[in-house]
């Protein structure tokens, strides 16, 4: 049986991709950003997922204003990086998992999430930047990718609650897939930022921190945040954060936060990053753990594990 073992939240700032592509990662400004993902790359290298479901949004690359699907699931065998005006990013073509993707589509549509099936799609920085942050810059991506593009460009995007519930439906779909596959789900975008109009440059670190805290502890609270609050508090484009709730919905109610990183700014945006593990995974990893081990101890242990990895 396939299962979702962990969730990753990550910003997808295009300038991060540009810094990578133009060899500027060593500059102090960018070092500050990239250093926050060193431990995450180690975590990912150890976790070795078979498939990553990446929830992201397209930025006028694959979809213009001609067609605006609210949820579009990539069911293709591969997804080339899009030309966003400077040529395609020099990253490997992303290999899909058409069988699992088709299974998810069939399952969630019957669960009343009427998503769009996409059999041909290029993917832009919204997807490729988080891939780089978590997998580095390999010659080939080490796992299959299922892109889930969410409209957060034309208002209104789906509500946070709808996103959260879609996450639950995706989890159910994955868990009914017969092949043994380890799946990690990404929520990308955010955190607070506004890049349009006279209020551009808005950052709200306090709000971001509260969002990350609740993402771990009380995601249901986040599902009640109305769109107006995202836009007012986290910037017009900060509304992208609803996508993180799809990731969160696909995880257990109780999760272990094994890593978090936050910095301001990357270009015009607050960069946020979190790794949440389902507890079953932690339990499976440590078979000696007594069944009644306290939840806090599990979280401490997971946090320690990732921290110690960073020390080399």
């Amino acid at each position, binding site marked *: 049986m396939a299962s979702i073992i962990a969730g990753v939240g990550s910003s997808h700032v295009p300038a991060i991709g540009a810094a990578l592509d133009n060899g500027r990662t060593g500059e102090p400004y960018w070092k500050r950003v990239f250093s926050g993902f060193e431990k995450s790359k180690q975590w990912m290298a150890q976790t070795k997922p078979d498939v990553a479901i990446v929830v992201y949004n397209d930025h006028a690359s694959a979809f*213009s204003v001609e067609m605006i699907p609210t949820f579009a699931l990539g069911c293709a065998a591969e997804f080339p990086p899009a030309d966003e*005006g400077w040529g395609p990013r020099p990253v490997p073509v992303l290999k899909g998992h058409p069988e699992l993707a088709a299974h998810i589509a069939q399952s969630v549509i019957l669960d009343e999430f009427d998503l769009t099936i996409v059999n041909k799609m290029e993917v832009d920085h919204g997807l490729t930047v988080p891939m780089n942050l978590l997998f580095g810059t390999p010659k080939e991506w080490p796992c299959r990718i299922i892109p889930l593009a969410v409209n957060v460009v034309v208002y209104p995007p789906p509500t946070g609650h709808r996103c959260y519930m879609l996450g639950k439906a995706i989890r159910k779909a994955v868990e009914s897939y017969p092949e043994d596959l380890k799946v990690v789900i990404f929520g990308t975008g955010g955190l607070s930022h506004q*890049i*349009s*109009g006279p209020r*551009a440059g808005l950052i709200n670190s306090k709000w971001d921190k509260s969002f990350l805290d609740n993402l771990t502890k009380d995601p249901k609270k986040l599902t009640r945040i109305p769109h*107006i609050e995202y836009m007012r*508090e986290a910037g017009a484009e900060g509304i992208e954060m609803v996508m993180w709730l799809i990731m969160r919905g696909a995880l257990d109610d109780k999760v272990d936060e094994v890593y978090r990183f936050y910095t301001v*700014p990357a270009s015009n945006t607050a960069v946020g990053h979190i790794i949440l593990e389902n507890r079953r995974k932690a339990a499976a990893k440590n078979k000696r753990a007594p069944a009644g081990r306290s939840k806090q101890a599990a979280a401490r242990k997971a946090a320690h594990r990732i921290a110690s990895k960073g020390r080399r």
Partner: protein
Amino acid sequence: MARAQHDYDDIPGTFVFDAERSRQGYGINMFCMSLMKDENRKAFKANEAEYLKKFKLTPAQTDAILKRDYNRMLELGGNIYFTAKLGATDGHSFQHLAALMTGSSQQDYAAMMLAGGRSVEGNRSKSGKQRPAKAKAKPKPKSKPKPKPSAKRK
């Protein structure tokens, strides 16, 4: 028909790209989308006014594009991810556009971002609802007296 009023119109310095603006700005955004192709960028740069005739634009939209009035483009239905392609065609970085839209120099804008960005304090609302949205939304139901058992209805 006048634009319908929305709660988010109260956010200062913000043009929310809603379905109505998406409809209104279709021409602007499709024009910007065309700039993804090099041959189109060249044609546009060779004769901007002539090139714009290929798209369904109002005189105000054409004027905003020719003047590079980015805020006006947003107001008339342009979306930032699309108008940024016009900026790129002009050879500008995104931060240049952001500085333009905020009426500051690029240097000042970059310095503001490095210092933590624009504060939300004083920037939440035109009408003076400056408190965080959560603070006013939450306590309300609690302070309400419990409905009488007889008032049960659905």
